[in-house]
């Protein structure tokens, strides 16, 4: 599936999305745009678990692009493309 971006949902996000993953066909786009496309594709609404009303990333959420946290890249403006894997986690803890 090298032509698509694989988006995986974890934790409570998976329940909201209604599925564990979606494949998004795209040349290249920002993480924010990818999230919107992923919500459409998943069917279940989940963006409010990740984004605040001002479209900023909520504290405690984790978005990994190929294992790297977007907070250490360009945040929601980080660009992703075909072949990438994006992991989405709502706030969680344990120990």
């Amino acid at each position, binding site marked *: 599936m090298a032509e698509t971006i694989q988006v995986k949902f974890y*934790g*409570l996000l998976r329940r909201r999305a209604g599925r564990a993953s979606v494949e998004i066909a795209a040349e290249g786009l920002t993480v924010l745009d990818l999230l919107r496309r992923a919500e459409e594709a998943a069917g279940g609404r989940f963006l409010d678990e990740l984004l605040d009303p001002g479209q900023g990333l909520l504290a405690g959420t*984790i978005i990994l692009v190929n*294992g790297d946290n977007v907070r250490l890249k360009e945040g929601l403006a980080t660009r992703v493309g075909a072949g990438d894997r994006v992991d989405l*986690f*709502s706030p*969680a*803890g344990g120990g």
Partner: protein
Amino acid sequence: MNGWMGKIVKLDLGTGARETVEVGDALRRRYLGGRGLGVRLYCDLFPRPVDPFADENALIFMTGPLTGTLMTSGRYQIVSRSPLTGTICDSSSGGAFGAAFKAAGLDGLIVTGRAPAPVYLAVRDGAIEIRDAAGLWGLDTQRTQKAIQADLGAKASVASIGPAGENRVLFAAVMNDKDRAAGRGGMGAIMGAKNLKAIAAAGSAPVAIADPAGYKDLSSRLDRMVDKNPVTGKSLQVLGTSVLVNIINAHGMFPTENFRRGVFNDAEGTSGEKIAESILQRQSACYKCPIGCGRTTKTKDRSGEGPEYETVWAFGAHLGVSDLTAITEANYACNELGLDTITMGSTIGCGMELCEVGAWDGGLRWGDAGKLRDLVTETAYKRGIGADLALGSKRLAAKHGRPELAMQVKGLEIPAYDPRGAQGMALSFATSNRGGCHMRAYLIAPEILGHPVFLDRFTTAGKAELVALFQDVSAVVDSSVLCRFLQFAVGISTFAEMLRTVTGLDFGDEELMTTGRRIYTLERLFNNRAGFGRGDDSLPPRFSTEEFQTGSSRHRRVRLDGMLDEYYSVRGWDGEGRPLPRTLAELGL
């Protein structure tokens, strides 16, 4: 007196003699209770470390000023010198035992000596009765608790050992309220050495509250804060602690096959998400806990409590096992026999690698899920290869000539976070006063979970200061005594307010941070006297010499030395990790 009951008793099991220990207001204020006051009392009794199994050694059961009051206050602490590590050790457990113990009229109980025959203690309404436990010796923890409740009534809360403790397995746990564990460090083995099968507590003594109106208001606000927080109000409730399986695995730092890889391909099948849709019967909660992270579960043949995150890992990825039923039933076996799941699983993993490299003919191999329950049982009774596994990983690996294959710090097995994936957590493991433990300073919170702020997990700058800060806050919470998960929702100011409201004393943030530092430094002084120094603030060589080739923590190594120097400097310790005279003077030690 508000908050504390004002009574700590010292009991000699050998003679039956008991005396009230006068603590005084100043000491209570400076060490609170639980871990802090327990360590202070222990160090006063033993300026020179003694053999943990010696008759004279003390095992101290402690509650704190907040025990039995506001939310998450059912916990208690057991303090002694660990037979597994030789360090000072406090082992903490949830449930309701702490609250029941305090309702029986005591803040703490110092147990010394060795009973001539098996006994248990009934602590009721301020009185301590030594009762015959000959008929209980040999029973598992569940049957023991039921038998004692049949004697004393169902309201009695019971903390007991199982066969593992009786047999002095070095990592035997104390189990209370069915399946809650004071797991780490082998406190159960010390009970076994003292012929002490259990302690049961019951009573109705109220904890006096200094500010009842403020207490009511604070209770409501705490409810709201915990409910509003996405971790305590949602994630931990629905998915338990095993929600971390997929998170840590996605960061390439989920220790797999004795920390040789950081990605477990079958993680999903052992995740919190999977548990919730398969074996979970219901969530369970400790005394006055609105979170309820516990998992009551059921397999085809059995039912019980767990597994939580560390256990999922210890019997799962760490051993190359993806069979959730086998993991869960190994957990049940540990609960019944009274064993620490982390050290048990980690030691089996060490054994698997020893067998693979040909250093041991123990017959262990990666992924052998069908053997787990038997291995746990053999360990509890020290039968067959269980006699070797009962040593814990450090002694096991040394015995077979490959000490570097034990994934431990100061003899305590490192839990489910590969330190190559988080430099701050690496320093936290290395400097933990009780060895490889994640609970002294949970740097996973900022480095992975973004709480309370998000930090780059691969950098070392500033991590030393943060580790010391986290260690100090944790010491305060462990001494109050409250559940550490409350820290996801509230900070030091709220803990100070809780202490003020209950005790009426004007605790402030700064004083409490100093208290935490005092406790941590006192523990360090004990460890120094027991022979621990800079060389012991280290990690197995694997973490600084071997790199993962896959996953997002690939090509990383732990860079400890620089952080360690900085840490000692922040702490006011010398280059060998010994507190400087001026530090001791500042802390009144």
